[in-house]
């Protein structure tokens, strides 16, 4: 949704289809007129499509008239207004966030209401109107400039991405990662005063008005309606309630749904602050607890961008998660790239060190190290490792089956990262991998020995069947 709007604003106006009939043939148009057209287009973006169409038609008529009467150069374009763009309506709909300029817009609205003039003739001047108009123009120009800056910065990695299909969204994130330092910390200077919570404030940002705490998630297909969006104050309450509900009820599907709609509200209102970070972190952890790697991945990707904006949060924890997560996928190139980009300070962090050691242990087949690390994974890393721990166990079992004649279950229990009371789990694992062939099948479980030579062939087959390729939805 946002992409479309940006594209319209920043596309050079002369390529718009409805202008080609006028512009393609014929002389160049005076710069003043071009500026006017651009500013009118920017103004138009606030309005619903129907009004935009009307405005465009009107604009065409004005220009055609000016061209045919030869008055293009003489009309003071900056003063010309389009009747179709009645300014009062959108201002009423969008409640400006900060209260300290509550007088501002309404006053302007009143002024312009009185001054609507048929389009072709230049406006009768009125001192207050002039002020308001120049202020508006300046604002739109500044916003246009900021828009252009932002597009220049985003274009050079979006164009790259759009020109060629990137290998998976992880690949895309890696690209973004490599170019993260280009983010322009621009300050929005125009009025109204931007809310400090909202980075990237622009005229598309909506302020919500809904007060309902809970809301089901619906994928947005059109412009969001402010009365359905919850403002930041309500969202804070929502988060508290969700935390309580999660603790008491533990209904993951419902809570996940709520979190998604919470995130959606934050995105639509362009709120990127500590609260946003909190929301994503909490959702990520809840997703981990429920083995929802897809949702977790989405959250941690977003968190990365938020951290890069300089927002505080549990960076160390999530950097560790990220590395552990990448051990799951088969995209080694991206993982190696990530590791090569870590700073020395980052490498000192305990969670990161743990993840890197796990990486090395995995790479060298040091199952002893790997499962020792698994058992002491910091924070919630264990949940991530859970997803590939069986794969590693299978590999370790093959190694051991090749090096031993018989494997006591006791050894397997300690070496394969099972806790002291998880012997049944181990037996279950062996059965699932067709490795439950024992030299002493009648002995009590704890004394059993796996017969290696009998088991090795099937194990290898099972490994290639079960763990051939890991495909995770939503990532590499």
């Amino acid at each position: 949704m946002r992409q479309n709007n940006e594209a319209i604003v920043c596309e050079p106006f002369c390529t718009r289809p409805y202008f080609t009939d006028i512009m393609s043939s014929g002389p160049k148009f005076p710069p003043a007129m071009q500026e006017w057209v651009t500013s009118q287009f920017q103004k138009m973006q606030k309005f619903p499509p129907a009004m935009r169409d009307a405005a465009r038609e009107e604009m065409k008529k004005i220009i055609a008239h000016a061209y045919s009467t030869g008055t293009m150069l003489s009309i003071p374009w900056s003063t010309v207004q389009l009747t179709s763009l009645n300014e009062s309506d959108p201002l009423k709909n969008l409640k400006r966030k900060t209260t300290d300029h509550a007088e501002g817009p309404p006053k302007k609205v009143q002024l312009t209401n009185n001054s609507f003039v048929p389009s072709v003739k230049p406006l009768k001047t009125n001192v207050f109107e002039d002020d308001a108009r120049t202020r508006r123009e300046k604002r739109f120009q500044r916003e246009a400039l900021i828009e252009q800056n932002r597009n220049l910065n985003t274009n050079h990695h979006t164009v790259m991405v759009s020109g060629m299909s990137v290998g998976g969204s992880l690949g895309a994130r890696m690209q973004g990662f490599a170019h993260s330092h280009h983010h322009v910390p621009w300050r929005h200077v125009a009025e109204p005063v931007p809310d400090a919570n909202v980075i990237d404030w622009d005229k598309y940002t909506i302020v919500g008005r809904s007060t309902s705490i809970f809301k089901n998630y619906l994928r947005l297909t059109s412009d969001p309606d402010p009365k359905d969006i919850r403002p930041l104050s309500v969202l804070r309450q929502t988060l508290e309630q969700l935390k309580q509900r999660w603790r008491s009820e533990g209904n993951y599907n419902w809570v996940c749904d709520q979190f998604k709609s919470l995130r959606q509200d934050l995105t639509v209102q362009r709120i990127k602050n500590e609260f946003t970070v909190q929301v994503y972190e909490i959702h990520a952890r809840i997703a981990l607890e429920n083995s929802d790697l897809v949702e977790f991945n989405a959250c941690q990707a977003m968190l990365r961008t938020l951290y890069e904006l300089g927002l505080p949060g549990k960076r160390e924890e999530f950097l560790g998660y990220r590395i552990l997560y990448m051990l799951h996928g088969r995209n080694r190139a991206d993982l190696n790239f990530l590791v090569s980009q870590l700073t020395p300070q980052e490498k000192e962090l305990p969670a990161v060190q743990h993840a890197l050691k796990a990486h090395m242990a995995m790479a060298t087949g040091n199952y002893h190290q790997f499962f020792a690390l698994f058992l002491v994974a910091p924070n919630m890393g264990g949940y991530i490792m859970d997803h590939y721990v069986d794969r590693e166990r299978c590999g370790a079992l093959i190694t051991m089956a090749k090096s031993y004649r018989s494997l006591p279950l006791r050894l397997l229990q300690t070496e394969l990262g099972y806790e002291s009371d998880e012997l049944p789990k181990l037996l279950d694992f062996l059965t699932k991998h067709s490795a439950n062939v024992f030299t002493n099948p009648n002995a009590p479980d704890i004394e059993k020995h796996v017969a290696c030579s009998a088991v090795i062939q099937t194990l290898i087959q099972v490994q290639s069947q079960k763990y051939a390729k890991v495909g995770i939805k939503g990532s590499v």
Partner: protein
Amino acid sequence: MKLENLAHHINLCVKANNGIKLASWLSTNEPDHVDALRKANIGSTRDSLSKKYMNKFASPWDEICIAHLLAVIAISENRMEDAYKEQASMVNAFLRFFGVQTNWVLTPLWVVLTELRQLAHDGDVELYNQQKLTTCCEDAARICNKAFTMCVTDRTSQPAESRKWGVYRAVNIVLKCYFKVNRTNLSKNVIRAIEANSDIPSLEQFEMTDQVTYRYYQGLLALLDENYSRVRETSDPPVYAYICPQAEGELSFAFEHCHYSSPRNQERILTFLIPLRMMKGSFPTVRLLKRFPSLEGLYGRFLKSIREGNIVEFDRALLDLEARLVQLNIWLMIVKVREITVSRVFRKCWLVLNKPSRVSIPAFHAALKVAGSPMEIAEAECLVANSIFKGFIKGYISHDTQLVVLAKTDAFPRLGVRVLRNGF
């Protein structure tokens, strides 16, 4: 020389389908015509030239000539970023002409693309010094990709004259761009484009230089993806054939066929081939390393510590060279090679004990400690198991008695001889 003269010369080339001459007229490195152009057009700007020449020559040659001249001027005034931009617009315009020609235009294409990349590099250096974003190389990558697409999609020419004969060279240029800007993950798309297109003649029919370069990059990509693990049983007892379909195979081919007069290229190939072979247990000879002193500096210490079974020295070297290795993406390979060092320690231990038929795990554990790598005894057992699994030791472990029972013959086989599995 005024632009009219330049256009006249170009015209002659185009009429005669003379790719070589056209290439020299479009180059910014040919001293003769570059000087003449510069001298005759001092002070020209895009506006002045456009006013004078736009629509005077057939499109797109007007843009090409103007952009070329402006690039020449910018280079002489050391405004590299502007030079790059002009060259980029020149190439873009040239591609429009290129798209409707047969393969005689490949020669000028290579020249302009090479210069484009050169200027992109210079432009980025300039931008970097000014602390701005370095966008030129990425932009160049995009343009090269466009050129490549045009080579691939030649539907109108005869097979012998088709632009498809430029495909592998074009893809090599594109890969070079991607590697330069560290976007290696985009390379897959380009390669897929080639593989998907069945009209392109097979790689073997292209010039050896293209083949070598292409295989070099294929090998690199496979290496980055750690694409060297595939296990196949062929007999009983199971013999794990070492298959490295991508990385080692491609790089070996590249090395063997690399022209003897390109030592720099050989060195680059070897930088990646050596660790791959090391993992297999086959080490470069002293003679080879003498030929390439920088490789000696990179790998010499590791090789020495492997032969001596010196873990301490190995780890120290690993720490010292970590930055460089990581940058070259071979750090992980060296870590895997460390296992070989560990197995050498085991061998030494066995020799010291006078080659017994059984060695106790605590003995190996102590050996590791002495060699500088203390750990728990269970971890030592794990490393022994890995050594057996990977073929460095022949025998088996008996856990309850904590003994390693060694094979009667060749318990510690020579490194190059063993068959191994390289898994992860």
